């Protein structure tokens, strides 16, 4: 198992390097001069030259790249122009609500998605399954921003049961109050992501339900409940874990729209603000940070999968 973890870490090194390259290049693909766009038309020639120097844009591309890589290795993701602060520090301040929101969303969607997925696999072809599958389709088809606005109107303005805006850290108001502030966005995210998890659960359960080993289990006299939920689910679990991991990672990367609408000062909110204010070093830093989180979560889900399914472990060795 340790061997597997080690290999998995080694395997993700090239992708990490690639992500560094891509997030470095992203600023260079933009048409025109990034500095000029950043500072606007009114900027003086001197300001532009200074900024260029500050961002190392006056140096040759390869030199810029090595500086970029060296900085990252020292955990320096660059410095924001508008905030005049290192990117990582800004992100650090923003990570708490995003992290909480991701946990609420993932937890809810898993709790809703997995049982409903198993149910619709069991009821395959029956009315229950058809209703559930339409529901899950609807849940992945609705635009989050639209639903969020309507929900705020319904539950925050018309019936005031949920707070609709802002977030205060656990330190300042306590865990429960913080969670309460995130309840409505959390529920929306949970329901929307539950569709995806439910669909994956159903698909992989249906696949597992065709397998011979379930028949063997039945022939041994194992109760139907255990046939499905022990023999079946443990096999289906690895692909479900992948989806859960994926949805957790994308929430950590920032539920951009939801954070924007609910005015939650999280990573997604930061990302969109940095884009709107054309703070390119900050965009670069955030992109890299989110991609690294993504890779890390992927790695963790793979390791969890290997723990569940010994076959995965051996295939890699």
């Amino acid at each position, binding site marked *: 198992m340790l061997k597997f973890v080690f290999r998995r870490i080694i395997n993700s090194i090239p992708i990490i390097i690639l992500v560094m390259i891509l997030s470095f290049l992203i600023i260079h693909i933009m048409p025109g001069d990034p500095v000029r766009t950043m500072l606007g038309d009114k900027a003086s020639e001197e300001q532009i030259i200074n900024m260029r120097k500050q961002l190392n844009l006056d140096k040759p591309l390869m030199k810029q790249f090595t500086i970029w890589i060296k900085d990252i290795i020292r955990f320096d993701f660059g410095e924001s122009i508008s905030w005049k602060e290192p990117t990582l520090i800004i992100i650090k301040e923003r990570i708490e609500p995003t992290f909480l929101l991701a946990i609420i969303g993932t937890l809810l969607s898993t709790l809703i998605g997995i049982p409903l997925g198993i149910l619709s696999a069991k009821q395959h072809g029956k009315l229950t399954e058809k209703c559930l599958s339409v529901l899950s389709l609807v849940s992945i088809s609705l635009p989050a921003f639209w639903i969020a606005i309507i929900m705020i109107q319904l539950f925050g303005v018309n019936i005031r049961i949920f707070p609709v805006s802002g977030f205060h850290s656990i330190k300042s108001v306590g865990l429960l109050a913080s969670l309460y502030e995130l309840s409505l966005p959390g529920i929306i995210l949970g329901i929307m992501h539950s569709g995806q998890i439910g669909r994956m659960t159903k698909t992989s359960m249906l696949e597992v339900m065709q*397998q*011979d*080993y379930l*028949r*063997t*289990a*039945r*022939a*041994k*006299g*194992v*109760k*139907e409940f255990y046939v499905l939920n022990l*023999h079946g689910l*443990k*096999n289906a679990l690895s692909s479900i874990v992948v989806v859960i991991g994926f949805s957790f990672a994308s929430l950590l990367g920032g539920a951009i729209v939801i954070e924007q609408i609910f005015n939650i000062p999280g990573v997604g909110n930061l990302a969109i603000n940095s884009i709107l204010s054309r703070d390119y070093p900050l965009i670069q830093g955030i992109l890299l940070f989110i991609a690294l989180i993504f890779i890390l979560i992927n790695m963790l889900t793979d390791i969890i999968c290997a723990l*569940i*399914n*010994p*076959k995965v472990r*051996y295939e890699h060795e």
Partner: protein
Amino acid sequence: MCKLLNIENLTIVANEKNRKVKITDNVSLSLNSGESMGIIGESGCGKSITALSILGLNNPNINIIDGNIFFENICLNKLSSGNLRKICGSKIGMIFQEPMTALNPVFTIEQQLSEPLKIHLKLSKSAIKSKCIELLESAGIKNASAMLKYYPHQLSGGMRQRVVIAMAIACKPKLLIADEPTTALDVTIQAQILHIIKKLIKENNMALLIISHDIGVISKLSQEVSVMYSGEIIEQDSKTNIIENPMHPYSEKLINSAKELNNGCNHLSVVNGSVPRPEENIMGCKFAARCEFCRNICKEKKPSLIKKNNGNGYVRCWKYINDQNLY
């Protein structure tokens, strides 16, 4: 004396799209305790489905529409699923065709092997472990205690099939059903597995129902043989009679080509055509289109299974039905 297993007029249909397709038609079999019976037939003749229907293991779209399956005078197909489960694995054990997929990849051999012991025998933990080792050893596995910690993918096909066998006999069932137990295995392994099954049924005085497409396998393990063709039993007799003197033209061809291949010959006798598809509606004998003795009556009316003149066997062919039996 009551029969151990008695299948009466079993008719099974599969629900496909908007129609129903008959898989087996009026299949009757019976087996006394300690006896062995083989069902031989080509792929798709309904032999496996018959065997799986005994324990109710068929897919939900395959249903018994007529007939009954009695095991020790209990009608299995009318039993509640809870009561049927008590028989599965304890009184009837089953060995499957594909050892590669029959074991659950995410559980160790010990976890899987101990399940029937836990469910039916309610043994203590320590007793289960020693019983597991004993079972694996009786299935011809030498380093049994080390094997317990393994996962299925770490074993070869032959080894996995031994584990499946050990699982099937864990509670010393009265009846063992083996559905093509060696088809997926190499010839040398096949010989080992057949020997193990033979040894185990003798030691535990189990009855055996073996399903195979290979007359060689059937002849090694069973005393009685039923030949199935396109969902029907067309001949049923002792093994010796079937092998030495097959009466139905199909069994004759089947046995002969097996003999020809085994003994080495210069030209194989050939039966043209192929098995009719289950959805084809055939009025007369299912084999008529491929039969060299085919007469008009064969195509028009289905022959019934009649007792052979010499001995206890049955055959379903107009050749042996006297004209007076046609009213």
